[in-house]
């Protein structure tokens, strides 16, 4: 923590930061540090437009801004000039929704680990930097406009098998089904996937294996997910291939760039389950009674 005392700016290892005005009253000079940056942003009018990188110099950016706030400032300036603002996805701005898909300076969600673009702060850059901003690039994620891509391929993968079939009825008692703590931890780790698509964006093959394996794992690790485990893994991988994602070559880039730290051990688990199901299982067809 920082504290102003007797004309000196001191760093203190204290959590009791005193915000009282009297502490600051002797200070006449508060220098506001701002940054001037050169942005290179992908502009594309629509899905069929070729698109190109466009330069936008921007000034007066506070290091404390989030990256999306910087984009807001840019868009304000563009609107004031009568230009079209840069279209980009955003929603919660707290790292939960997975909307803010931007490939910044050659990495999904920019520099820094375990963060989404909205959690990236401008202090990660220095005055005078050039920042390249592009949309996710994958055949399965077509660009709709500027930095906005269509990620509904992920929805269709989940629809293919990322669920458990439970007939509604009275609620089951808590802890009625014993679950190993380690399994529940691993299932929860996998379930933290927010479906942002950074794994696909980072992968040199535009593979969706980390996403799909996280969705497979978070269900198949739990007893409730066992019933449909074999159908699920076959259907979800089949859908993943149909969407046009590439294959996993185990570079590990997805794991490094994942804002939620999803491990590639999930990919191994999915491979294991897929091999088992593909070799030993053929989905039965109902011959009577069922639909």
């Amino acid at each position, binding site marked *: 923590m920082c504290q102003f005392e007797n004309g000196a700016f001191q760093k203190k290892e204290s959590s009791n930061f005193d915000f009282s005005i009297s502490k600051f009253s002797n200070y006449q000079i508060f220098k506001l540090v701002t940054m001037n940056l050169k942005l290179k942003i992908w502009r594309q009018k629509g899905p069929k437009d070729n698109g190109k990188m466009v330069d936008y110099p921007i000034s007066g950016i506070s290091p404390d801004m989030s990256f999306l706030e910087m984009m807001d400032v840019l868009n304000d300036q563009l609107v004031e000039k009568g230009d079209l603002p840069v279209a980009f996805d955003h929603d919660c701005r707290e790292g939960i929704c997975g909307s803010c898909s931007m490939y910044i*300076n050659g*990495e999904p969600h920019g520099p820094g680990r375990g963060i989404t673009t909205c959690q990236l702060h401008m202090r990660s850059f220095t005055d005078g930097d050039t920042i390249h901003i592009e949309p996710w690039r994958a055949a399965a994620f077509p660009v709709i406009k500027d930095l906005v891509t269509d990620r509904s391929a992920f929805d269709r993968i989940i629809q293919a098998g990322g669920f458990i079939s439970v007939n509604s009825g009275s609620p089951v008692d808590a802890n009625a089904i014993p679950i190993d703590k380690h399994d529940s931890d691993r299932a929860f780790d996998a379930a933290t996937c927010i479906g942002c698509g950074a794994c696909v964006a980072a992968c040199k093959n535009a593979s969706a294996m980390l996403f799909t394996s996280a969705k497979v794992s978070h269900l198949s690790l739990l007893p409730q997910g066992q019933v449909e485990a074999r159908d699920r893994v076959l259907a979800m991988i089949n859908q993943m291939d149909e969407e046009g994602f590439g294959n996993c070559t185990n570079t*590990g880039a997805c794991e490094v760039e994942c804002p939620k730290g999803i491990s590639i051990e999930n990919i191994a688990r999915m491979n294991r389950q897929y091999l088992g199901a593909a070799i030993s299982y053929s989905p039965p067809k109902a011959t009577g009674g069922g639909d």
Partner: protein
Amino acid sequence: MAATGLFLCIFLLGHLAGNLQLFMTDEAGKLQFNEYAKFMTTFPAVKILSYLTYFSIVFHAIDGLLLTLKNRKARPVGYAYSRPDKNSSFPARNMAILGSLMLVFIVLHMSNFWVKMHWGELNVDIWLDANGNRDLHSVVMHSFKQLWYVIVYALCMVAIGFHLWHGFQSGFQSLGLNHPRYTPIVEKTGYAFAVIVPALFGIIPVYIYFFG
């Protein structure tokens, strides 16, 4: 890819065990090596293994090519600015290029030794050694006395080393063989394999060039 790749790792160990006999450059070593070469080309069980090896190489190469083409299609428009070095290793990103280099090497290598051993004319004066076996030992000695071949061989061993650096543990991961206790051991074994095996392969021609 994983199954054939890991099988080819085992093949490399067997191949290396045979090659290490080439450190014996004297007459006795020559006779022993030629006897070994005859055994390797005629013994039925070894023949079965060798056909499995040919199949693995061809399958691994064709499957790798098809997967690479499919993976390229998955990203038709690339990034204007990308920093893959921030999140992945050089060998992991360049398996196809390293594999292609190895394929070129395998063709060169087999045309030099394998074809000659099986059917071709040996480019030495006497084709048969004192025991009446085809004199592969002299062919090897002759080849490794050529500087360009020694350099190409050594460089290809570097490519194989990089390929194995990623490929060994990647094979286990693709087969789903991942475990918190054993994966670190597999990774370390893979790194050791990727350094030691190509290094031993590569030292042989250098040794023969200088001391053979």
